[in-house]
């Protein structure tokens, strides 16, 4: 048994809640078919999400974090398509289903909050009408019921229900974002997927929205997968954190662990990129350079050109995901960590207990 004590207590927690993870993403790969060739935006990413869990996904622009989200929700379009892997939500596979097959799961069990509410709300329909058609699509037809529930969720996020009659352009940025969250709450789903919902907001509005999300989550017990480029934003809210780089998982572990002791040089670099508002002033360096071209194949570590701890081997050997004390990290520095390399696709610590058995 390779589990450490923390792992055991986690497993016990989970056994109490449910047997399998609510969301199981395995080796998910997303490819963009472009004229110049294909770009693998998401490369064999695996992730489990438990009920009531808050998982943060961080990374720079172009790292595939949003693509991953939309692939999970099966909302890819245009040139992007899932070319490998699976997504199991409450035991049901979501990959390859048509929109009408997915309709039963969508919104009732799994809802989405997007980055810019201005673009994600239909500009020619009032907020109330957009709530209504979501409810009617899932069988709620009573006008009274629809009106009551719409008002209720809007109140939950602190907006006067009178705004059901408003059109998106009549609301402020913060209110639009809140009403998106209210809409995601209509059926109190098991999982809400959020794609940088606060990135268009100012710090104060951002903080209050985060507090609100956490509040609602504690109250209603849904799980959250939260994508952001701002690592510090999720530091106090997420249970686990996944750091993505160039389409791959760089590091995955409990948020506190990643912040206190980042294993991947990239995670460490990201943490170092934020000046602090308190404490002594220290000179920071950030991470010089830019992310790699994803239309190429790599026979090396993708982070090697920017890595301050780069070794000769990094330039010839693409690292696997290695398990280190209940954490996963894609870095050769940890190749001979306490645990042997785990097979791709067994990302969730829980599942490893069984599968990584030699």
């Amino acid at each position, binding site marked *: 048994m390779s589990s450490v004590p923390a792992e055991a207590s986690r497993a016990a927690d989970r056994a109490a809640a449910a047997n399998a993870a609510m969301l199981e993403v395995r080796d998910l790969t997303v490819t963009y078919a472009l004229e110049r060739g294909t770009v693998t935006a998401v490369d064999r990413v695996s992730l489990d999400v438990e009920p009531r869990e808050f998982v943060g996904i961080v990374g720079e622009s172009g790292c595939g974090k949003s693509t991953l989200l*939309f692939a999970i*929700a099966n*909302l890819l*379009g*245009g040139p992007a398509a899932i070319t490998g892997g699976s997504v199991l939500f409450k035991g049901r596979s979501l990959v390859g289903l048509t*929109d*009408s097959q*997915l*309709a*039963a*799961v*969508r*919104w*009732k069990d799994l*809802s*989405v909050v*997007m*980055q*810019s509410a201005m*673009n*994600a*709300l*239909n*500009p*020619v*329909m*009032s907020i109330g009408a957009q709530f209504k*058609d*979501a409810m009617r*699509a*899932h069988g709620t037809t009573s006008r009274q019921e629809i009106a009551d529930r719409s008002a209720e969720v809007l109140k939950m996020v602190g907006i006067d229900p009178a705004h059901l009659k408003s*059109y998106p*352009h*009549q609301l402020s940025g913060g209110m639009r974002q809140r009403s998106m969250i209210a*809409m995601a709450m209509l059926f109190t789903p098991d999982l809400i997927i959020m794609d940088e919902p606060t990135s268009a907001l100012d710090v104060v509005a951002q903080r209050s929205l985060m507090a609100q999300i956490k509040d609602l989550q504690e109250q209603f017990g849904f799980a959250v997968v939260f994508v952001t480029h701002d690592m510090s934003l999720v530091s106090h809210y997420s249970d686990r954190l996944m750091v993505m780089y160039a389409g791959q998982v760089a590091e995955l572990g409990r948020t506190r662990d990643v912040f206190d002791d980042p294993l991947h040089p990239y995670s460490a670099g990201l943490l170092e990129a934020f000046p602090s508002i308190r404490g002594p002033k220290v000179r920071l360096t950030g991470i010089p350079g830019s992310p790699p071209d994803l239309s190429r194949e790599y026979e090396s570590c993708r982070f090697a050109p920017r890595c301050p701890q780069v070794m000769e081997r990094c330039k010839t050997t693409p690292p696997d995901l290695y398990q280190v004390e209940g954490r996963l990290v894609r870095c050769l520095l940890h190749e001979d960590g306490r645990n042997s390399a785990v097979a791709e696709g067994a990302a969730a610590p829980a599942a490893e207990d069984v599968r990584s058995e030699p």
Partner: protein
Amino acid sequence: MRFILRRLGFFILTLWAAVTLNFFLPRLMPGNPALAMLAKFRGPVNPSALKALEVAFGVKTHQSLISQYVGYLGDIATGKFGTSLYFYPESVGRVILDAIPWTLGLVGVTTILAFLLGTGVGIVAAWRRGGAMDSILPPTFVITSAIPYFWIGLMLILIFSEKLTWFPSSNGYDVTLIPSATGSFVGNVLWHAILPAAALLITTIGTWVLTMRNTMVTTLAEDYVRMARAKGLPGRRIMFDYAARNAILPNLTGFAMSLGFVVGGAILVEYVFNYPGVGYMLLQAVNNEDYPLMQALFLLITVAVLVAILMADIATAVFDPRTRSRG
């Protein structure tokens, strides 16, 4: 509301510009055609016809250009277009009134039909991205949009009238019939309208299909469409309430804007089919140097286009809450 008022102001201005063009064009052209025409008519034509011509050009002998212009504006505003030279002694107004229903029936109906049909096809083509329809339609309609209006009329006459003799090649109805409200007469009118309507439909529908398809494709990539999918809405609802409704808004104005072009096509089609509408009348006036009639028809067509654009503006304001609050 304010938005509509502003548009109304713009149209009055445009109308004034058209009237002014009408007044100054014949004077400012090289050789001052207005005077040349008058000189030509002074001899043989009877005095009242000459007077009609003077009204048409706004020429009141020996007045300054300014007072001539003011007088002309007054005449137009009070609906005095003078007497037709070709249909003498009918008044211009009378002649036009006879022609209007034909054009309204033929061009009005086909234009709206082409817009609805074309938009519908465009919506479906974009929705079924990558389907057979979406790969065949765009190149086809790019080519049909380059067909000269009149030539497609000629080809229809060649095939369906000369060769197959299914439809008549000219006139609005069988000249042996006496216009009446009977079923047989109406049937005859429709029978005569089929070829010209087809010619108009073929040449105009392509633009609508293409513009609608293209805006629809762009709209389909919007976040709110993705959001609608995430909400699990039925496809039909996403297609109409989310994608099409947003995609059609810019096209409404475009539709109105291009009516000016459609009218041009309609004139040629009427001409080819000897269809007794406004366009045919305009060309008859041109060929017979009936300037009062020509100028009045030009203004009439302008007004008609402006009214249509105004209607499209109102529709936009109704369907787009953003316009309403901006206004």
